[in-house]
């Protein structure tokens, strides 16, 4: 059981058929399952390129001070 909350996107029929053939040889239940899996992987990869550490120079100095005091650095 899932939340069942889905929407529709369009892909070329030829690609659909290609995936359908591929899916038959894998553990995926449907073309939609396969496309969802692949898209999640690709989206996560693109998202991971956009990240900056959540601390500025001032935070950094304070954190380093604590790490030093605790013997970590």
């Amino acid at each position, binding site marked *: *059981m899932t*939340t069942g909350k889905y929407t529709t996107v369009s892909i070329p029929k030829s690609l659909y058929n290609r995936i359908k053939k591929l899916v038959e040889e894998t553990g995926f239940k449907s073309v939609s399952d396969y496309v969802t*899996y692949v898209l*999640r992987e690709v989206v996560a990869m693109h998202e991971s390129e956009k*990240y900056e550490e959540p601390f500025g120079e001032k935070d950094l100095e304070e*954190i380093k001070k604590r790490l030093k005091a605790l013997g*970590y*650095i």
Partner: protein
Amino acid sequence: MVSRPHGGRLVVRVASENRRERVLASAAEYIQLKIGLREAYDVENIGYGVYSPLDGFMVSEDLEHVLLDMRLSSDIPWTIPIIVSVTQEEKTFDVGDEVLLVYDGHPLAVMQVEDIYSYDKKLYVEKVFKTSDPSHPGVYNVLREMGEYLVGGRIELVDTVPNPYSKYYLRPIETRVLFRERGWRTVVGFQTRNAPHMGHEYVQKTALSFVDGIFINPVIGRKKKGDFKDEVILEAYTELMRNYYPRDTAVLSIVRYEMRYAGPREAIHHAIMRKNFGCTHFIVGRDHAGVGGFYGPYEAQEIFKEFPDLGVTPVFFREFFYCRKCGGIVHEKICPHGEEHRIRFSGTYVRNAIKKREDIPPYIIRPEVARVLLSHPDPFV
């Protein structure tokens, strides 16, 4: 760069010093909601970003997605409900109110109530624990101890539960700086609730061979009777690492958290927590986060296939053992010898030997670690 926080942003929900003082000074004027230790640790983990991207307790839409899809409503992977429950009698507030979450007389956080909702306990336990058998401790907790309503909303941390091991405690923002200072780009996380034996050490060092550093992250929280006490585990690890790990390749730091014993789902949750600390990899062993015979020995490894977007790489291990014929610590992929040659690492064996003050062979446990365990007159909970 170490791992990007889960959901893309490290959440910090800690009140400013002024706000904290104001809240604590006027604590008596707030509607107060008493919470248990589990929720108190959850509050801390939300506040410091261990549970990023969560910024509060789950509202009904997120819970529904977590139960049915193992994802938040934003599609981000999430497998364990992070919730606070109330009984009918405790439901003395409404959506829009600010409630003070209090543990054992300590005000911990202000919660903006965004949702108050009922839930289906049977569906909850069947989805999270894959059983409704009340002999499962997680199921028991939901069916017998949780209230009939859940309250969702953002929190703002004003204090934490007193921590006797604060010198071992690092927040995700601190581990991220630490890993950067050490020049680690790849970090493997190791979760533990036990004193280390040679099986643990081999798993850790095998994983460490492929990455820059290891983050050994014992869970500190309520334990079962007969488990090693938290201070014993920490002392044992400190001694192990001092003697057998290069200083610049390993970090020991605790996380305060109560186990749910949800097996596969909890393995994903453990990986997410370590990702937020900055880990790029996470070790998943045999029957990870399992209890009794509720889960298959490698079910907690198989579930990772369902999350191509988890953002942390699981490192799977089967069981290590000592083989008399190989003359070393091995696992079934590299040892051709029969069961008669194999000595399994058993926590029960170690505990019994310590109780009886017996010597433990050095291929089971390091002598330095054994000395720590034996130095405590009563090392068990």
